Structures are given as C-alpha cells and as structure tokens.
C-alpha cells in the first residue's frame, strides 16, 4: 500500500513536543515518525524515543582487525626477511608492540567512524521530503503515514501548530 511521507515544519519546540504526543495518540509507532532539527536537543526533549544502537561493537572489531594486521606485518616481515641488525633479535618484540599499538588504534578509529555513519543510516542519497528552514531554527516532524490516515495526520500536524506541511508520496 502506498505510504506518503508528511513533513510538518514548526517554529516552536513546544508545539513539536505536542505534535509528538498527538501522533502517539493517533497510533503511530516510534519508528513511523521522526524529528528533524538544526540543533541537538537533549535526548527525549520532544518525548521521542531513540532506538538502541550497537555502536560499541564497532571499535572493538576494528581494534581486533587492526591488531592482527599489524601483528602479521611486523612479525611476518621480520621472519621472512631475517637480517641481523645491531645484535638485536630477529623477532624484536618491543618495536613490534609500538607498531601493533598504532595499528590497533587505527583500526578502532576507522571502524568507529564507519560504525557511526552506518548506525545513523548515512549516506542518504536523496534527502526525501525536507525543508531548508530546518537548519535555520525550525523543527520538522516527519511522518510516514499510510494513505487512509493521510488527512487525519495533516490535520493533526496543523492543529499542533505547524507553519507548513510538505508531502511526498511513495518511498
């Protein structure tokens, strides 16, 4: 069935909070509407709920991968190219530790960034229905609502004080 994305643009954060509670009453689930703002409001300011995320796995995985690659490089190069330098052992652990440390951190950093991009559902190739005023202090409430509820939703958004309503049918 066709889903229309409705965006209500608000001036007043208070109204947004109001709109959110109305949407709840109208039976919209947390993942059916979303809030767009130019400013990070403290979590839950509008009574919205942010789904849990698994970001903390990413750095760990990255660290592990980075560590093993660094271990491979350091140990492998020394063993496959056994040259005595300055009476140091062929498999010199302390220098390996340094490089392995850097590798670990690099892996962790890279995967954290990738993880954040992934978890925040980016990159997003089309903005979808959007309003440039959002980055100028307005706040948007975006609802994915089925055809039959459409009228009711628009009315609901207007009542809660939306300055403007935009629509885009289809996903």
């Amino acid at each position, binding site marked *: 069935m066709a889903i229309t994305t409705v965006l209500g643009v608000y001036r007043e954060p208070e109204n947004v909070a109001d709109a959110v509670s109305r949407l709840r009453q109208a039976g919209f689930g947390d993942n059916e509407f979303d809030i767009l703002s130019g400013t990070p409001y403290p979590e839950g300011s509008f009574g919205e709920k942010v789904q849990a995320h698994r970001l903390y796995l990413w750095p760990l995985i990255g660290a592990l991968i980075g560590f093993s690659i660094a271990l491979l490089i350091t140990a492998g190069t020394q063993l496959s190219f056994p*040259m005595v330098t*300055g009476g140091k052992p062929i498999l010199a652990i302390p220098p390996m530790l340094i490089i392995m440390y850097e590798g670990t951190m690099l892996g962790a950093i890279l995967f954290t960034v990738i993880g954040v991009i992934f978890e925040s559902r980016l990159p997003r190739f089309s903005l979808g229905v959007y309003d440039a005023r959002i980055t100028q202090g307005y706040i948007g409430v975006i609802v994915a609502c089925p055809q039959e509820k459409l009228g009711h939703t628009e009315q609901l958004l207007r009542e809660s004080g939306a300055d403007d309503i935009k629509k885009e049918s289809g996903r």
Partner: protein
Amino acid sequence: MVVDIDRCTGCQACVIACQSENNQLLSTEDIVRQRRTMAWIRVERYWEGEFPNMKARFIPMLCQHCENAPCEPVCPVYATYHNNEGLNVQVYNRCVGTRYCAQNCPYHARVFNYWERSTDAPWREFFSSAQMVAEPMNEYLNPDVTVRTKGLMEKCTFCLQRIRRATRTAKNEDRQVKDGEFTTACAQACPTSAIVFGDMLDHNSKVAKKLTDARAFHVLEDLGTKPSVTYLKKVDPNAKPVAMEH
C-alpha cells in the same frame, strides 16, 4: 682488523689508498671546506701537551664493523645490516638517505654523498665548485666498486671486493682462504704496517695473534658496541686511550 697506533706516523697513505680503491668522490678543497670530506678512513690528529713541547698523536679511524652496530637497527629499509662474515655491509641500492645511521654512529665512520657526481646544471656553481668526475678523471675508477650517486650513505667496506676475489679464487682451487691472501687497501698501503687485516676466527692469523696483545683496546668501549677493529695503545709511559683525549 688491528691498528697499532704506536706504529702510525700519520702519513695519510691509507687515506689515499682507500680513496682510489673505492672510487670515492675526490675530497676537493671546496668539499673539505663544506666539512663533507668523503674519506672512509681518516687519520685523526690529537695534540698533546703545551706549546712548545707539543706531541702529535695519530689514530686512524674507520668503520669499526661493530657487532652491536648502532647504525644498523635504525635504518628503515635494511640498507645496512650484519652479514654472516661479521661485516657491517651497506647496500647502496637500498639506501634512501635518511642519514640516521650516520647520526647514530659514534665513530663518525659514515660519509654521505651530498652532491650529484656529474651534473652540468649551470646553477650548480652557485652552491659549490666541487670537482666532478669529468674526463679524463673517470679513468681512475675501480671497475670492481660501484660509483655512488647523490643521496647515498657510504662507508668503509673492509674492501669487500678484495675479500670476495680471494674467496672466489680459493673456491675455484677448492681450498680455504689463506691468511694474508687478501687485505684491505689501507693495510696494503701502510708503510709501517700499522694496520693489519685478516680473519679473527682463524687462530694462527696475524690479526688473531695481535688481538691478545696487552696493549689491545677498543675505541669507545663503554658504549658496548663490540667493535671488530682493535687498537694497540701507543707505547708511552703516560699513555691513555687516545680516543679519550681532547
């Protein structure tokens, strides 16, 4: 190698011999003034006592081929390492010229090719009038030894090419290399034979005998670099290790 300081007269023969054997860039007056002398072996002169009764002390200084060579581990590309003959070898092709090895060599044994040997770039003169290897000077080059280009580190190789030749001939006649069959240019040229070169492991070689001499010492021993070049003290009632003097 053993260097008997007592016999050294500071005649610089070794320096010249080394230079022509190993195709070194001629250390012209200009290069010397830039303090970039290219000699692999140098005779260091230390004055002792007050004028007028002064005394010169000579110590030939060259790469000590240390067992724990400080220059080796710091090279990022293994351009210098220890080969199985206990020689500290320099791989010219691999060298990228970080000059870290030279920094870390307490004996100042390493020299760096600051100049392109032969370039006709006109603005070259602006920086230095150092002589290039132009005709007919290229005739002096030793075919057995690489000619190094700019940006390379180089140092004493204990005349590796001579050792190789000796071993090769010995191999062809399938026998062991005999003592005295090969020697370095500096040792060969030394009129007082202050420099003796040979295989330290072979116990009845000239070198091995001198090693046990009571006067034997190593330069900068407290660094624990275990040099392969042993020096014999000057026979002198008030002798101290020459290297410790200023």
